[in-house]
């Protein structure tokens, strides 16, 4: 009766592993050079999109989906979203 659920975060295929690496490196670069850098402004389109509640909900949903996909992607996405929203709160 007892069922064991195996939880693994390993990539399921080569394509999956490649996509994870691309997304992780992209978010790493974004966090290093955009989110955590005070000298680099956000694109004006992202600043303008802050007024849209759908945009803000989508950002948070991406955090959850990214974490469901891969823990590292979730952490990177979470950091990027937090820095963006905190900056927007300070600006607006």
């Amino acid at each position, binding site marked *: 009766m007892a069922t064991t659920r195996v939880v693994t975060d390993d990539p399921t295929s080569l394509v999956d592993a490649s996509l994870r690496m691309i997304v992780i490196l992209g978010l790493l670069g974004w966090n290093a050079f955009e989110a955590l850098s005070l000298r680099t402004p956000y694109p004006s389109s992202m600043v303008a999109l802050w007024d849209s*509640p759908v945009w803000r909900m989508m950002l948070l949903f991406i955090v959850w989906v990214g974490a469901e996909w891969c823990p590292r992607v979730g952490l990177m996405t979470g950091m990027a979203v937090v820095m963006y929203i905190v900056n927007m709160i300070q600006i607006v």
Partner: protein
Amino acid sequence: MASSPKAPGSPNYRSRANSQISPMASPMVSPVASPKVSPMASPKVSPVASPVASPIEEMDMSLLSWLTNTHTVLKWPVTILTVAALLVAGAFAGIASRKSLEFLDNSIGSAVFFIFPLVCSVVLDWPTGLLAAVVSLIVFARLQKRDSSEGFSDTVNDKSEQNTKLISNPHRWFIERMLGERPVAISSDRIITSAVQGNDSRIASSSSPSQSPSLSIESSSSSHK
């Protein structure tokens, strides 16, 4: 054979039969397999009798099992509802008034910012806990900023227009070039200050006019990322 533990007449066999052995064990003690079995014992191990003695597990009525069962059944819907609530809370925490969040601006509220993501990750799953941590940080960041009515903007008569403006002019100010700033928005481009109005005994005694004329100073002000 008669001394075998699985012999029908032995005490071991009786105890196992009384303890609801699974039907898989019955061929091992069937009368066909052991010719020396007495006929009196055969009804207890016959295939006809096995459904009557089929294993019926007793329901575990302990509190722990009840909690485990409830958690298993409700985990998925609670996760969906929690994620939806976190999405709404995080999306609107940035534009919510500070007064509506002030109940979290104390020691207990600060503890909630840590405990709530931890509970979500333990009870539900860790992606939901991560989302709860992100929302907690957003709410915390919102609490660190005062409402616009509490700051300098109160002196600006801007009831009809939005205060924050995106910078469309590519030419930067001199001070921005000197400090290396590249602002994308300006919170307020006009501040009107007025001199203090009132009767001052020193001014009144030294000068003839009892009230000094009000000064109006307009200046440009802060811009930041």
